C-alpha cells in the first residue's frame, strides 16, 4: 500500500522551511529587532522568553555577550544559505564539467576523470579543509572557495553516469547525423537532459555544504567571529551548555531543521523531476 501523500507532505514542508529561511535571511536587516553584533553585558545569558527567567524583549534570549539570539539566528541563516548556494555553484561548475567530459568522451579522458574522483574521495575532507583555512586565514570567501573546490565529487559522478546514459540515445544520434558540433551536442542535447538529476544533487550538496561549514566554524576554522554562523555560535556557547543547554539547542535545532528541509525538498524534487534513486 503506497502512501504518496506522506511524500508530498514532507516535500511541501521542506520547501516551506527553505523558503521561510531564505526570506528571513534576505529580509534580515528589516526584521531583526536588534543588531546581532551589539553587546549588552548587563543582559547576558537570558533564557528564551518562553522559558523561566526569560523576558519578552529577547524572544530567544541573549548569549554570553548579551547579543540578542533571535537576531543572530536570522543573520546566521543568511550565512548558512549564502555559503550553501555559493559552494554549490562553485562545486557544481567543477563537478559537472569533469563528469560530462568523462562521460561524453570516454576512454583516456574518462580514466583521468575517474582517477580525479577517486583521489578526491580519498582526501580526508575536514582535515584538509581545516588545514587550508588555517593557513590562508578564516573568512567567508575562503570557506566558500575551499568547500567549493572539495565538494564536487557527487556532481562529477552523477554528471558522468547520466551523460553516459544519454549520449547513446536516439536524439543525440540524430544531432550527430545532422552535423551538429560537439559543443552544440554537449550544451543543447546532453546538458538539458541531465539537468534534472543535477538539480537534485545540488540540493543535497547544499545541505552537505551547510553542515560542513558549521563543523569548520565549530572547530574554529570556518567563518570568523563575531559573524553569527550557527556552528560558531555553538562553539562559543559550549562552555555554558551545562548550565544553560538552550544556548546550544537554538542554533543546533536551526541547523538541523534547515538541513532537513533542504533534504526533504531535494527528495520532493527527485520525485517531481523523475530523477533516479541513485542520485
Amino acid at each position, binding site marked *: 500500500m503506497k502512501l504518496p501523500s506522506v511524500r508530498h507532505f514532507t516535500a511541501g514542508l521542506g520547501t516551506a522551511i527553505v523558503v521561510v529561511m531564505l526570506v528571513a535571511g534576505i529580509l534580515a536587516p528589516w526584521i531583526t529587532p536588534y543588531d546581532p553584533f551589539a553587546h549588552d553585558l548587563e543582559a547576558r545569558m537570558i533564557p528564551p522568553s518562553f522559558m523561566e527567567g526569560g523576558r519578552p524583549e529577547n524572544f530567544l534570549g541573549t548569549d554570553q555577550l548579551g547579543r540578542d539570539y533571535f537576531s543572530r539566528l536570522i543573520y546566521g541563516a543568511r550565512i548558512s544559505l549564502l555559503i550553501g548556494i555559493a559552494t554549490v555553484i562553485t562545486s557544481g561548475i567543477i563537478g559537472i564539467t569533469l563528469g560530462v567530459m568523462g562521460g561524453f568522451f570516454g576512454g583516456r579522458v574518462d580514466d583521468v576523470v575517474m582517477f580525479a574522483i577517486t583521489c578526491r574521495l580519498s582526501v580526508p575532507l575536514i582535515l584538509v579543509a581545516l*588545514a587550508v583555512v588555517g593557513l590562508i586565514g578564516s573568512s567567508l570567501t575562503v570557506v566558500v572557495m575551499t568547500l567549493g573546490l572539495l565538494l564536487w565529487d557527487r556532481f562529477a559522478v552523477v554528471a558522468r553516469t547520466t551523460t553516459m546514459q544519454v549520449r547513446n540515445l536516439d536524439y543525440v544520434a540524430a544531432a550527430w547525423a545532422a552535423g551538429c558540433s560537439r559543443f552544440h551536442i554537449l550544451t543543447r542535447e546532453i546538458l538539458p537532459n541531465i539537468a534534472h538529476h543535477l538539480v537534485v544533487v545540488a540540493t543535497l550538496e547544499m545541505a552537505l555544504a551547510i553542515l560542513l561549514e558549521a563543523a569548520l566554524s565549530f572547530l574554529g576554522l570556518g567563518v570568523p567571529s563575531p559573524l553569527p554562523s550557527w556552528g560558531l555560535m555553538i562553539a562559543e556557547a559550549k562552555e555554558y551548555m551545562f548550565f544553560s543547554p538552550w544556548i546550544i539547542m537554538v542554533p543546533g535545532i536551526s541547523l538541523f531543521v534547515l538541513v532537513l528541509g533542504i533534504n526533504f525538498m531535494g527528495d520532493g524534487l527527485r520525485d517531481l523531476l523523475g530523477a533516479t534513486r541513485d542520485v
Partner: protein
Amino acid sequence: MFLARRALIAVLVTMTVVTISFTLTRLSGDLAIAIAGPQATQEDVDIVRKAYGLDKPLTVQFFNWVISAASGDLGKSYMYHEPVSKLIGARLPITLTLGLTGLTIAILTAIPLGIIAAIREGSLVDRGIMMIAVIGQAMPSFWLGLTLIIFFGLKLQWFPISGVETWHGFVLPGIVLSFSAIPALMRLTRSGMVDALASDYIRTARAKGLSRATIVLKHALRNAAMPVVAIAAVQLGFMLSGSIVIETVFSLPGVGYLGWEAIIKNDFPVVQSVVLFLATIFVLLTLLADLLNAALDPRLRTQ
C-alpha cells in the same frame, strides 16, 4: 591481475593525495613565517627557514619527505618534539576503536531496520524507518555529540562526559559516528532486500513451502549482503577520515584530534603525516571493498 591493477591505482591515488596536501600547505602561505610566529623578525624567519629545510626548492623538499616517509620516518613534530610516527602510533588505537565501535553500532542498527523496512515495503513502518535515515543525515554531528553529552553524560550520568579511561567513553562518540553511516547502510540493505525478495529464487523457496524466517534470513539476506559489506568498508573509511570532529567534541586523544591540534599550531610534519595516514587507510579500505565485491560477485571481476 585484477588485484595488481587495483593495487597500482591505490598507490597512485595515495601519492596524488599526498602531493596535493604537500603542495597546498606549502603554497598557502610562507611556512617559515607561520612557524616563527607573528612577533618574529626577518632574521628569526630566515633562521627558521634554514633550520626546517624550507629554503630548498619545493620539489627537493617533497622528494626528501617521500624518501624518509617510505622508510618510516615521518619527521619530527614541532610542538611535541617527538617523532611523528610515534605520535600517530600512540593515537591510532583510539581512533581505530572509535571507528570500529561506530561501524558496529551502525551495522547492528541499520541492517535489521533495513530488513524490516524491506519486508514491510510501502507501509507506515517502512516510511518511519526511512524517516530515521533522513533525520540522521540532517543532524550536525558535533551538535548531536554535545546534546548526548548533556543528556546522557550530565543529566543521567550513564556515560563519561569526555575521555576514554574505560570502554564507556567510546559509547556516546560511537553512537554519533554511527549516525553518519546508518542512513546509507539502511537504504542499501532495504533496496537489496526488496530486490532479493522479488526475485525468482525466493519465489521458488516460497513455493517449496519454506518458512518466512528461513526465506528472509537464509536466502534473501545472503544475496542482499553483497554490496552492504563493501559499503560498510567504505563507510568505515569515511568515519576514520571524519573522526576529527567527534574526537574534538569528546576530547578523545586520537589521530583526528592530533591533526586538529597540529593545524591550530602550524605543526606541518604532523599535518602532512596525518593526511597521508588517513588517505592510505581510506584507499586500503576501498581496495578491500572492491576485492570483497569481486570475491562475492564473479561478474565484477572483469571490470
